[in-house]
């Protein structure tokens, strides 16, 4: 038997929710620091899961099982977070598939990977008007507004995110991240996005970069 962190990594990789939750309880009973447990246990497990997904050793259902196992464990750890503010999460993201578009598979993958990386993600689902995205971002004081489109017609709603934020005088409050099958980086830049994700793992890297920038980094 390895250390408890090794067991947490293993339970996360295996998508074993029951074991993952039990280990979270045990770690707290042992007086471990919850963020240490997340950072060096669950997050490291999810990193391995991400690597397995990239090589198709794992498929989406396995990734979701692992993400569920980690999410359930984090629920156990939450009461132990003392006086920790927003700085302890990687950032808050509001995500949706844009208006008119019912295809949410890609968005769901990105959401899972972002959560796995430690972001707080508010998922509004599919077919979401730009105003609803912005309203939700305001309500939860999000850092990033992320939108996905699989259709070229629905992609045409994406420029509204930046332009409406401009109109409302709120553009500097949020980073905008776009993705989806018809979206390419040059177009994303042209319509005011701060970041573009080709796939889920790139989306995570971009979200991290945007948070760094938003928190004053370069």
């Amino acid at each position, binding site marked *: 038997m390895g250390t408890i962190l090794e067991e947490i990594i293993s339970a996360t990789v295996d998508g074993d929710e029951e074991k993952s939750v039990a280990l979270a309880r045990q770690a707290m009973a042992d007086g471990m620091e919850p963020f240490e447990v997340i950072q060096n246990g669950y997050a490291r497990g999810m990193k391995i899961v991400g690597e397995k997904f990239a090589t198709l050793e794992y*498929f989406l*259902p396995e990734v979701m099982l692992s993400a569920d196992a980690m999410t359930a464990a984090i629920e156990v750890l939450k009461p132990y977070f003392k006086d920790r503010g927003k700085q302890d999460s990687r950032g808050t993201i509001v995500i949706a598939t844009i208006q*008119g578009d019912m295809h949410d598979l890609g968005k769901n993958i990105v959401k899972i990977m972002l959560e796995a990386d430690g972001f707080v993600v508010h998922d509004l689902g599919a077919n979401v008007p730009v105003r609803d995205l912005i309203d939700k971002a305001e309500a939860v004081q999000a850092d990033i507004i992320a939108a996905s489109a699989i259709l070229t017609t629905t992609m045409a709603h994406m420029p509204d995110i930046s332009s409406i934020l401009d109109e409302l005088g709120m553009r500097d409050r949020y980073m905008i991240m776009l993705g989806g099958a018809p979206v390419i980086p040059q177009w994303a830049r042209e319509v005011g996005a701060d970041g573009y994700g080709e796939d889920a793992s790139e989306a995570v890297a971009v979200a991290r970069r945007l948070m760094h920038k938003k928190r004053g980094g370069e």
Partner: protein
Amino acid sequence: MLGFWEVMDRCDRGPLQKEKQYDMQIARTAREQAVAFDIRFDPESVIPDDDDLADRLYRAAVAFFVENGVYCRDTGRLVRFSRREVEEAVKNAPRSITYGQGKDTAVMTSRKVEDAKPPFITMTPVGTPVAEERFVAMMQSFVQEPLAQTFSSAFSQTVNGRAIKAGSPQETEAAIWNVIKLREAARRAGRPYIGIHNLVTNAEATDATLAAMQPAFGVLPNDGLGIAAISELKVDYERLKKVVFCRHSGHHTYGLYGPLLGGFAGGVETTAIIHVAHHFLGLLMYDAQWHCGFPLHLHYGCNSSRDLLWLIAVTSQALSRNTHSPISVSPFSAAGPCTDMVVHEMCAISIAASVSGANLLACAPARNRHPERGTGMEARICAEAGHLVARQRLTRTEANRVVKSVLGLYEDKLDDAPLGLGLSECYDLDRLQPTREYVELYERIKEQMGNLGMDYSLL
């Protein structure tokens, strides 16, 4: 035989299920059948020459479909079918579909594995984005191709200078514009009555789609619509409303199925089972007269990878050996026009599909997402490879040898494929012909393919 409205009743009365639960179980259910029927991917046998494998895959797909059913997103219910209902739908499925009128009439039928009958060729850039001013030129570059038997649309980035927003009045305007311009391209190419297999590809909303399907805009009574399943094995009311319209208007419908290898469908074997099962969805829920598959790799976004070629071959064989429904495969390449790689990829996919009994819906270069990266030339490359397979009476064993050799030329570049040139860079837009550079490139690769056994003199 089960009627359409009985099926719709099941959308309202089937067992309730959470979508996430459905998503999580689908690959697991398919995996059980993969094990039960011993479905295994062999990377060395890209085009398997194994009738028993094809038949086992078909039986696995029936068993899976009966157990799994279809998920209706609007009602949150499972729509289940009995084995007998599936078998009846297969037995009573249409055998042929006639598109076009007069000298442009073309009849699509099913094909057999290693069939001497060439594949039916539907040509389209599969919604590749294009500037409004070049839309008709791009479409004409497809419809003028001699092997094209029907055609369909690119995606104009604007209509009358305005972006097309889903659900807006502009979407309806754009859908009508699209149909008018498609028929204009056909007339310019001297094929005024060629069939349009998918009339509206630039509108998602049902109202916009139906608004455009009017004779006054150049729509023929036997033009049609492609209706896509949502990944994996899901339907919704928007799609079903289009089916109802086509049932009454007489327009053809075909099913579009794009399961994602690596997504909810899982690995290559389970994705193959789920892909075949989509055809039963098409028959039972979409009144589909034919079926088009575009299975894709989750990371590469194309279907020219080794595992996808196997999937295309084995699923096409399963369907052509066990049904009489016309099936088609839509090649998606990673590379763009006027590159060696796009020719290699398109040839590999076309050969795998054609020798396995499929027709071709050609095609989606550069994963159909990069502006202007789609021309009639890539469709020609696909169509010619598919015709050669039939004219040469290529066997699966021979095709496997050719495709494996071609695969070796591009397999390691899928992650970083060249995007190639746009329409205005690789076509002379005045004469609407490929540039000398592109023609010479294709001639050079044809010579290379000739050395592998493809006899282009038969064209």
